[in-house]
């Protein structure tokens, strides 16, 4: 015989942004979310609500999700005015319903920025981040197989700092939180990650110049040093990387202005 569940459930009202397509006009629609377990993640709660909507013949709420363990950066949603909801250092998939109380009205919106157009409901197209990455967020040289440990000495502090930056999952919460829709935290994490490691040095200047240029071209805003980005970041990436990128950008601009250009007069493959 199984004992009766002692788990207390509760109910909230969802106020969700519904938008049929990229060009369609959107609006907020209220849906009740009944008998919610406090241990459900926010996405599981949306699954439950969607089951109910489907049963009623209403189009389910479209939302982006994948790993549901906070490492892929697919889930988004601005929940009650903060990207990824009220928790510190968690993505929407790891925001649990115990963060809310019975009777709450929870406002759920897509990440908003001109560079992140809404595809449908809560789903946004964040391909702009991929374009920034493609413009310089890599090391061109063949990596080959794993080198011997310590063949390339890296100070522990630099390695740890590079790992802090490398934690960026590219979710776009920094852009969504910023009043200027600036991508500075994302770009600075990528630039900082590679710029701190010896493998990234050869292309350090070219990388920061190219990635910042792409960021500007794609229509992201600029930084006003309010640090809403790092506070909203599910990986708590520090805005110290923004300062580092600013310095790198200035240094790279100076160097590129005075660096001699190769004459390309010698032999070799033309």
């Amino acid at each position: 015989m199984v004992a009766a569940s002692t788990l207390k459930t509760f109910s909230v009202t969802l106020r969700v942004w519904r938008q049929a397509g990229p060009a369609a006009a959107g609006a907020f629609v209220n849906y009740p979310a009944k008998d919610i377990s406090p241990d459900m993640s926010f996405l599981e709660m949306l699954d439950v609500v969607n089951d109910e909507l489907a049963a009623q013949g209403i189009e389910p709420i479209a939302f982006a999700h994948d790993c549901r363990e906070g490492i892929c950066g697919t889930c988004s949603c601005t929940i009650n005015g903060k990207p990824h909801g009220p928790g510190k250092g968690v993505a929407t998939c790891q925001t649990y319903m115990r963060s809310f109380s019975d009777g709450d009205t929870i406002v759920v919106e897509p990440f908003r920025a001109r560079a992140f157009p809404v595809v449908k409901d809560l789903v946004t197209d964040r391909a702009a981040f991929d374009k920034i990455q493609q413009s310089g967020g890599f090391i061109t040289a063949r990596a080959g197989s794993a080198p011997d440990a310590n063949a390339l000495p890296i100070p522990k502090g630099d390695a740890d700092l590079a790992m802090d930056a490398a934690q960026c999952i590219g979710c776009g919460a920094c852009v969504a939180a910023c009043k200027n829709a600036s991508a500075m935290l994302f770009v600075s994490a990528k630039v900082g990650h590679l710029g701190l490691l010896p493998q990234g040095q050869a292309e350090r200047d070219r990388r920061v110049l190219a990635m910042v240029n792409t960021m500007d071209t794609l229509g992201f805003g600029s930084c006003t040093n309010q640090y809403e980005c790092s506070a909203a970041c599910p990986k708590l990436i520090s805005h110290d990387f923004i300062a580092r990128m600013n310095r790198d950008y200035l240094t790279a601009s100076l160097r590129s202005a005075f660096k001699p250009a190769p004459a390309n007069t010698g032999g070799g493959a033309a």
Partner: protein
Amino acid sequence: MNLVGNLFGSSIGRKILMAVTGLVLIGFVIGHLVGNLQVFSHPDKLNGYAHFLQSLGPALWFARIGLLVCVAIHIWAATVLTLESKRARGGQAYGVKTWIQATLASRYMRWTGYVVLAFIIYHLAHFTLGTAQSATYKTALPAYKMAQDYHVLGFTVVPAGTAVLDVHRMVILGFQPPLVAGFYLLAVGLLSLHLLHGMDSLFQTLGWRNSRWSKSLRNVVILACLAYFAGNAAIPGAVLTGKLSPESAAKSAPAAHH
């Protein structure tokens, strides 16, 4: 890519221009305040100082044009960046948006900037051009005869007995209308708030700030802004409360000779 193109054409470049011009202007407003605080000393001090600055001729114009260029670049960069950022935010506003950790001063930079700009225009019309409150402008007042020599770095730059413009009296009379003094107090208050975010921000923009010492930096900036406000508020404050008046100036003993 070239340096000037990057500075004027990219988002980070314009931010760097904001920071550098801001730094120059911070240097100016602090120096300007230190010079002005001589109003609390014998009239010889402020009048000798003003006469010395006016005697610099081309150097004075070099500094003035430099400062105006800094103001113009600062405003231009702020305008372009703000318009770009507004566009970047997109057409659809959030239904609900909360601030997480942005400081109060950082949220009102544009508005404090507007008031400071309006103040700069009035301030120049008042004390530099004499088009506002022209009845108490220095050229409308009787000349002042220096009681003692005025020195800069040990050199006598304005000898005793020189007839100079009475800037000391102009400042006191200029702040006697409560509306003028009140606007000045409001403007320097908002300028201090502007500097509270600006002084902190320029370290971030130039890449010199990190979390190892950002709290100390913030505390130094807060203290600097409080001191800046107190210093500036003291001048119209002393005029409004009657501590500084043409009579008190006449009574004060000449500074000890050194």
